[in-house]
């Protein structure tokens, strides 16, 4: 077994420490939807079933913990603070001792999620069973933060496949992924987005590996299994399947072209490895009368958009265009986006970089402009690096296509969900954290930009990048602490 490279080991130490800091600084329930995600796991452990048919949304135990720690309620309201009183805390300790934990688990939108992340979180929930509700909740947060180590390692390995054994570029890629503040914030809370970021990053590495080296039995099984598990972790991961399939098929063709007799077996094993967890979830969901994916609520008198409806597809195309660009003369105005001229900036960019709590804890506005310029430079640099590599015949179009297809699949899935909710409920559901599964591609773009520099300037440039990300982490922790505790 090979030793962990020293730069990666040190980076993982940094990522772990920051993950612990986030898990302890953010007040309970101030990660988006954290209460219902905790409830999902509590429902599995305390009731022995997936949520959806319980008595209340939250158990009495969790509901009381939420009201007390939030001092009534602080969600989306910057005025009140969480409970600061030690007396209130000790009062809660006395009163919460024997409250039931098995009377929650009624339907909530996230109860439609597949169960893998919540089963993973059941381990710390059970392990911390001798403690209070908050002991369990913070054990879940720390356990979730470990996924950040998987994500960071996946990004390091991905860069190794794309750039070869170049430690500086690997550090740039993994550094961006492991130190991006929104990734840390989400991963260090109880939220399945921690898992999807890890799964997608590892899948990118395995896909790039299959494309570069050809489809072997071991790599194919690993890729199939990771993508299969990803769809049992969050339904959005079905958007990864076409890209993974592309990687497997191209990898299979490349091996077959070399005359390897085992190519067909490797492809079959890849598909079987995917089908095993994904199929198990499909069968389980059918047996339990649940959907395999999440569904938009039905509204009386409003027809839900359909992929088989030409009208829906045309309106969807118009919606996507107007999400990013001004309306064209021949297009109808998509009313739910009316007056919102920079949705992609406020959603994908701002809340993808730094929007903590329930999105209301922000950096100063100018910081997003700086991050916007930095992001644009990274994207342009990444494209320039691909063009340069292509001219030197060192770029692999299949790898570029694989990553682009994954990105396109995710964006299409997210936009379809957003369009559906906007159409039936005038309610936008997209948040920047939903594109974090693509953060490793961002890491590659940054490393690609660095690769354009002369060799002797690359390491100092990565030094400045890491320093910038650390400053951003500190600033993010500071605004979070200020909002809740000052």
């Amino acid at each position, binding site marked *: 077994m090979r030793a962990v*490279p020293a730069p990666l080991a040190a980076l993982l130490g*940094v990522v772990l420490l*920051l993950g612990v800091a986030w898990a302890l*600084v953010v007040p309970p329930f101030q990660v988006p939807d954290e209460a219902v995600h905790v409830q999902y796991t509590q429902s599995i452990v305390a009731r022995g079933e997936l949520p959806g048919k319980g008595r209340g949304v939250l158990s009495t135990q969790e509901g009381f913990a939420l*009201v007390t720690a939030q001092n009534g309620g602080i969600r989306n309201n910057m005025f009140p*603070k969480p409970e600061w009183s030690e007396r209130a805390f000790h009062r809660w300790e006395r009163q919460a001792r024997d409250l039931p934990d098995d009377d929650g688990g009624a339907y909530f939108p996230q109860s439609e999620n597949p169960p893998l992340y919540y089963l993973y979180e059941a381990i710390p929930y059970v392990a911390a069973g001798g403690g209070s509700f908050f002991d369990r909740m913070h054990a879940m947060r720390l356990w979730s933060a470990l996924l950040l180590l998987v994500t960071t390692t996946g990004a390091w390995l991905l860069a190794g496949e794309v750039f070869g054994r170049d430690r*500086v570029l690997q550090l740039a890629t993994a550094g961006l992924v492991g130190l991006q503040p929104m990734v840390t914030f989400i991963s260090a809370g109880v939220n399945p987005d921690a898992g999807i970021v890890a799964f997608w990053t590892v899948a990118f590495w395995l896909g790039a590996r299959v494309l570069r080296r050809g489809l072997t039995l071991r790599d194919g099984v690993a890729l199939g299994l990771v993508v299969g598990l990803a769809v049992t972790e969050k339904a959005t991961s079905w958007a990864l399947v076409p890209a993974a399939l592309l990687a497997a098929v191209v990898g299979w063709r490349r091996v077959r072209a070399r005359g390897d007799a085992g190519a067909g077996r490797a492809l079959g094993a890849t598909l079987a490895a995917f089908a095993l967890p994904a199929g198990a979830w499909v069968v389980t969901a059918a047996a339990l009368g649940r959907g395999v994916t999440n569904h938009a609520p039905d509204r009386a008198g409003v027809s839900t958009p359909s992929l088989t409806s030409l009208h829906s597809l045309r309106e969807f195309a118009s919606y996507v265009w107007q999400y990013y660009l001004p309306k064209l003369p021949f297009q109808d105005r998509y009313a739910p986006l009316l007056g919102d001229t920079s949705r992609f900036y406020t959603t994908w960019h701002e809340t993808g970089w730094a929007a903590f709590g329930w999105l209301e804890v922000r950096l100063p506005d100018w910081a997003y402009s700086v991050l916007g310029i930095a992001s644009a430079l990274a994207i342009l640099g990444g494209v320039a690096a691909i063009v340069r590599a292509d001219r030197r015949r060192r770029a692999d179009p299949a790898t570029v296509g694989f990553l682009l297809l994954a990105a396109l699949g995710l964006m299409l899935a997210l936009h379809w969900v957003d369009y559906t909710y906007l159409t039936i409920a005038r309610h936008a559901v997209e948040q920047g954290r939903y594109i974090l599964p693509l953060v490793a591609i961002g890491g590659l773009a940054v490393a690609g930009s660095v690769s354009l520099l002369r060799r002797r300037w690359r390491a100092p440039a990565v030094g400045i990048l890491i320093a910038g990300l650390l400053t951003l982490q500190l600033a993010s922790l*500071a605004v979070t602490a200020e909002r809740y505790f000052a």
Partner: protein
Amino acid sequence: MPRRAVAAFALALGLGVAFLVWRAGSIDSTVAFPVGPGPTPVATIVPPRAEVCQTPIEVLADTRAVEFWLRTNRPSAPLEVTVRDLRGRPLRRDRVTAARGNPAPVSASFAPIREGTSIALCIRNVGSAPVAPSGGEQEADAGTLIAGQRRGADLTLVFLRDRPRSDLGLVPTMFRRAALFRFGWVGAWTFWVLAALVLLVVPALCAFALARAARDQD
């Protein structure tokens, strides 16, 4: 090359941290602690000569003034603000006048009240027209009383310190507050240790990672 990379990292991080420390030291706040949901909603209507009390209030930081918000349709509304103990005995008192506004902020000052005291904050309408203080349902174990009757809503109040404190100066207080509702063993000390790790060990690890990566590239 490793030396140049670490120097660039150290310089950039030093500038970043210096900027953050400067910002944290220059943002001053006089807020000791808030009560209620904020200035927008209306808590209740207080008729002439009636008194509304928010009780109980645990004083979470030393304070010597309170700010609240009020709606009135008169050019001015005279009010008497009384701090009472939980038995109803007056401890501090101030007379103030609210201007017309939607809502208008009102401040009352009094001799200092120490952290840890439990009080009621009462606003008596001594004018001739009803007034509507801001508030709403917020606090789990408190509420308002009018003529001895318990109401569901809470008054929105901001208790103020006698002098402003910077975010940097509030760090010990913030760590104490952050330690609640965590693992049972977490205390303010945990956050001091974490802060030391994040400010000392994290940069050291990053510098090490950079140096090793740059060396490998050489």
